[in-house]
């Protein structure tokens, strides 16, 4: 699968490429094996009369989602979104233009569910559901990281993410699933986290971390697991338990809790914040995976739920949890439920509850990558835009040298890292490298102009993705780090022994 490809040149300034039809038609993630599919309640392979099943499912989805219905009807083909997707900018494949991606599904919707498409298909570009269409779906709906950048620019707020989630849901329903996402969801159901890390291994890892931090700082910072009656349940992406640079973030959270004297715990039952069911658009799984967290919170009798650095997990937590697993009337009403770790840290900083020594990060010139699921799928704090200001305020409190990348590449118009939405898999590495182009261009500029050598992020997927793709663009993989990694460096925990 990993055929040779060229890393796109960064160029002097970003350009909108001319179309190259079929440039990414070969990009397809591995297909999920039958037993994997069955574990999630999907058929193992393409069902008989799958065309019919797919069309019926599409109708069902449309009748269950106003978003889908309005989005499928309302596009005027104005073209405003065509140059907004990082995958189009990085690959030049026209089917990676958001509207063209939507049209892959819209053409089928029109054919079976609209007057014009039923009687004049050629006029409105309506198509029958065929194997060729399905192949196109599988390829190009797995070239969308569901980052919602296109939706910010569409005059009707048409969100291609909703459409690609629906398409993936339909594909799963007919028996064509993506191995990477479905494998991970399977592991969460079975073991409790994406990595399939069982409880004893998790406990071991945490004990090891306690020792490491003790050695480095001389302070006994705890990493508690399954502690009943703790104040805070921390739910964080499992990558935080051992992947680099994620783990520095986890250490940062622990130090914050320690310094503020907040009792906290992780849960082995809900040892994962990520919820990949979002990516495959399946709401049964979405709800089930989220439910573990409610169960864990009730079981442990905590007063607050805090979510670690994870983009889509925070979207699910902030935007969907109240719906899926709320109401949170068993939690302390003085705190937002759920609360982001950045909100917690920021509050402590504002109250002067943390001692931060910025000079600990003086070897770094820092910039911040806004993770799209945080930027465009959620919020922090109690004013709009808090998801942009709060992480930056935290960074500024922890480092002396901070610069932002170009304004059109951050904030609500941030560019995706290129690996979100269930695409963070080696069988899609070409797509990931090319999709990272716009972010790499913006980064390159601050590297050249300000000597930036550290890009902080608050998303586990972003961190893994950049670790992988930075070297393709001739940067060190260590350039990417956690916001709470910076906090962990700067925080002063008391006198060294």
């Amino acid at each position: 699968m990993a055929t040779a490809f060229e890393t796109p040149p960064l160029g002097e300034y970003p350009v909108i490429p001319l179309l190259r039809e079929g440039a990414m038609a070969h990009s397809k993630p591995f297909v999920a094996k039958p037993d994997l599919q069955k574990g999630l309640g999907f058929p193992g392979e393409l069902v008989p009369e799958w065309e019919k099943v797919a069309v019926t499912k599409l109708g069902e989805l449309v009748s269950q989602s106003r978003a889908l219905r309005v989005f499928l009807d309302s596009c005027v083909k104005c073209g405003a979104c065509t140059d907004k997707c990082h995958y189009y900018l990085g690959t030049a494949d026209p089917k990676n233009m958001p509207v063209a991606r939507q049209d892959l599904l819209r053409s089928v919707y029109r054919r079976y569910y609209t007057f014009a498409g039923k009687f004049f298909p050629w006029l409105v570009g309506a198509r029958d559901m065929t194997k060729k269409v399905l192949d196109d779906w599988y390829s190009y709906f797995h070239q969308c990281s569901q980052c919602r950048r296109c939706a910010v620019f569409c005059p009707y707020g048409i969100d291609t993410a909703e459409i690609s989630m629906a398409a993936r849901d339909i594909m799963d329903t007919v028996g064509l699933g993506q191995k990477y996402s479905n494998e991970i969801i399977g592991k969460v159901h079975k073991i409790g986290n994406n990595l399939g890390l069982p409880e004893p291994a998790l406990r071991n890892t945490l004990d090891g971390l306690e020792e490491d931090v003790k050695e480095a700082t001389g302070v006994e910072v705890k990493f508690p697991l399954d502690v009943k009656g703790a104040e805070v349940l921390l739910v964080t992406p499992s990558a935080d338990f051992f992947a680099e640079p994620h783990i520095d973030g986890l250490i940062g959270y622990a130090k914050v809790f320690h310094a503020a004297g907040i009792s906290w715990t992780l849960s082995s039952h809900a040892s994962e914040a990520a919820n990949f069911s979002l990516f495959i658009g399946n709401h049964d799984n979405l709800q089930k995976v989220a439910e573990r967290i409610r169960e864990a919170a009730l079981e442990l009798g905590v007063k607050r739920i805090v979510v670690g650095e994870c983009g889509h997990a925070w979207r699910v937590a902030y935007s969907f949890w109240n719906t899926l697993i709320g109401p949170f009337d068993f939690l302390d009403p003085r705190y937002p439920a759920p609360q982001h770790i950045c909100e917690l840290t920021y509050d402590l900083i504002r109250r002067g509850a943390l001692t931060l020594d910025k000079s600990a990060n003086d070897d770094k010139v820092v910039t911040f990558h806004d993770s799209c699921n945080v930027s465009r799928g959620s919020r922090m704090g109690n004013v709009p835009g808090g998801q942009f200001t709060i992480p930056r305020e935290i960074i500024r409190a922890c480092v002396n040298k901070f610069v932002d990348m170009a304004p059109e590449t951050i904030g609500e118009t941030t560019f995706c890292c290129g690996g979100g939405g269930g695409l963070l898999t080696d069988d899609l590495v070409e797509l990931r490298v090319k999709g990272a182009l716009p972010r790499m261009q913006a980064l390159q500029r601050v590297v050249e102009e300000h000597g930036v050598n550290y890009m902080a992020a608050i998303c586990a997927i972003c961190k893994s993705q950049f670790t992988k793709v930075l070297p393709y663009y001739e940067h060190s993989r260590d350039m990417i780090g956690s916001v709470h990694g910076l906090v962990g460096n700067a925080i002063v925990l008391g006198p060294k022994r």
Partner: protein
Amino acid sequence: MSVLTVLYALLFYVATATLAGGVAWKCWVYARTPQPLKIPIPPAPATRRGVVLRMLTEVTLFRSLFRSNKWIWLFGWIFHVALLAVLLRHLRYFTEPVWFWVDMVQPFGLYAAFAMLAGLVGLWARRFLVDRVRYISSPSDHLMLALLVAIAASGLAMKYLVHTDIIALKAFFLGLMVFSWQELPADPVLLVHLALVAVLMIVFPLSKLLHAPGVFFSPSLNQVDDARERRHAAGWSAKIVRAGRTPGG
């Protein structure tokens, strides 16, 4: 009564019914379809008021479009505003006595017709000149622009080239509204203009012109960003049954 008059009278009844019925039906379907999850897109206001303001700036100023592409915004905005002025100007054919403010917009309506044409030509040119927009255009997108251009051109032709009997035309429409049919002047340009308008009214609820009501129902634009404060539930999300403990239990 000429056959032509009968034909056009019927055509306009059908067109009006299709437009009104079709759009009402679509709105009803949109309103009835649940939106199970919160998906506002930033800049998402945290209050109802903020959302009203946001929708207003979207539909009057095309705020998002301005941000994304100045050319499309320019042509699109000019076209829509001009269309509005032209429509208001046309109210004089349907009101007796003519409302005073309709009188006032008359001169603007005239300039607007040219502006509308300019906007349409600009939008159409993009469909040929910009490779990305060419790729996403289907025959219906071109036809829709052709239809609008033809309507504007035939209207202008009547104003400047081949005048039509405005008094009789107005009598025809006023008559239509109270079901007392009057003779329609049989000028070819007028007949073309009216036929095209009727076609536009009929295709409206069957085509992408649904973006007009659609924008108001778009959850990414019209939802309040208050997911944590207010529990949202609709459709499947209102039917979630929890196996474990109940809230607070």
